[in-house]
């Protein structure tokens, strides 16, 4: 009875598959799960996207609000990304303030935005020193089955591409917002992440499920953009990794970037023609 073996001895169960160069869900070691994307489904948000990587589902909603820029950076706006792992998405999360995992994911997304320059915060300035946009990017996980970071970066990128800001004019002192005239954001770079797990200190697998994540000995996330530049390499501890293996991860990540950018472009186009 396979199910009994799986719950009683999960590590042995996975090893028996990896020995044959495959995984319990039938994937090869370097195969991503099917990724699907839905853009602009939330009408209350200024931009939104829902991403499914296998079972893992993340929805990103962007709300734009007006605020004052800081004194130190009068010509810049704000991007505020937050990842939420509500108890709804898995039995492992409890209600309450963000868990450590959610905090780490929020920080990771913030780092990706900053280092990749997906959006330049100068673009969010309306009037220097007086008024700018703040983009609240809320990423909510609806189904947690591993590889949260990849799903989050795709959802964020797709939602940013979908975001429309209304035109703001400043007459006398108060700003005036014209909802009839909107503009999209200028997306400078398309960062896409690829996550890997190290199993038994040596076997490298991509796009881990929640179960694989719980048995890993190390984890690695590589973010690259369309010009094959590395934006972020995130490896929170775990067993060491050879340079060769890292190179392998990076080349897999660049291939993944192409696939995802193609997917986002395709969905964005289909949404535009549907309108």
């Amino acid at each position, binding site marked *: 009875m396979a*199910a009994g073996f799986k*719950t009683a001895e999960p590590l042995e169960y996975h090893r028996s598959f990896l020995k044959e160069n495959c995984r319990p869900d039938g994937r090869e070691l370097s195969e991503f799960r099917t990724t699907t994307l839905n853009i602009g489904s939330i009408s209350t948000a200024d931009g939104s996207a829902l991403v499914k990587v296998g079972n893992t589902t993340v929805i990103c909603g962007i709300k734009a609000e007006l605020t004052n820029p800081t004194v130190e950076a009068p010509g810049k706006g704000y991007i505020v990304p937050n990842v939420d792992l509500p108890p709804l998405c898995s039995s492992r999360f409890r209600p309450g303030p963000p868990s450590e995992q959610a905090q780490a994911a929020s920080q990771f997304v913030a780092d990706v935005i900053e280092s990749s320059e997906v959006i330049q915060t100068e673009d969010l300035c309306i009037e220097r020193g007086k008024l700018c946009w703040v983009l609240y990017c809320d990423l909510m996980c609806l189904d947690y089955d591993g590889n949260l970071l990849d799903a989050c970066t795709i959802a964020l990128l797709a939602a940013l591409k979908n975001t429309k800001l209304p035109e703001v004019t400043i007459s006398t002192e108060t700003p005036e917002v014209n909802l009839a005239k909107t503009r999209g954001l200028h997306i400078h770079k398309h960062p896409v992440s690829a996550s890997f797990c190290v199993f038994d200190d040596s076997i490298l697998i991509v796009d881990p499920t929640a179960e694989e994540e719980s048995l890993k000995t190390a984890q690695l996330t590589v973010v690259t953009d369309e010009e094959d530049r590395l934006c972020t390499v995130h490896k929170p501890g775990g067993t060491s990794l050879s340079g060769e293996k890292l190179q392998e991860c990076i080349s897999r990540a660049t291939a993944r970037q192409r696939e995802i950018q193609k997917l986002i472009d395709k969905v964005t186009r289909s949404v535009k023609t549907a309108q």
Partner: protein
Amino acid sequence: MQIFPPTPPLPVFPPCLSPGDKLCSVEDCIPGTGVYLRHGYIYSSLAGYVLRKNEGEELPVISVVRETETQLLPDVGAIVTCKVTSINPRFAKVHILYVGSTPLKDRFRGTIRKEDVRATEKDKVETYKSFRPGDIVLAKVISLGDVQSNYLLTTAENELGVVVAHSESGAQMVPISWCEMQCPRTHSKEFRKVARVQPEYLQA
């Protein structure tokens, strides 16, 4: 608050039922699982299929079943498969993984007290010589426990006890007697309360 008259009973059952669907009168069938009684009628309490079985009695037994794993909770007398999480001189703590052959989706905790490890020479039992953390154990539920305690389990039967255990070197051990297991790699012997595995549990 009765505002509308209740809907008349359906003459033919739809293939799939939802909770609250009226099945039949108690005069026609005996209620089985997944149903409840109300005012002399049998209603469905599950989303599932109707199943009518004639078990030699006058009336057929009517049940509503879901083919997917039915929701089972450990009950008194049930044989459960569990994994030992910790031990101390008085008891072993376990996680219940299976009730019979149905896996539980969520973990339930149980306790095997020292006096419930085996049927004879209860005072000589040492928990350290019976279980180790990580062992897979077959046990029987003797009580749902009280407010403070968890499910109380027993292994005081020949068929109950350790079924899978790993030696200190990590290899899966083979039973050599009712109280000893041997590591195939190092040939060292370790003490366990070993279950005499019955054929029907073998594949589990």
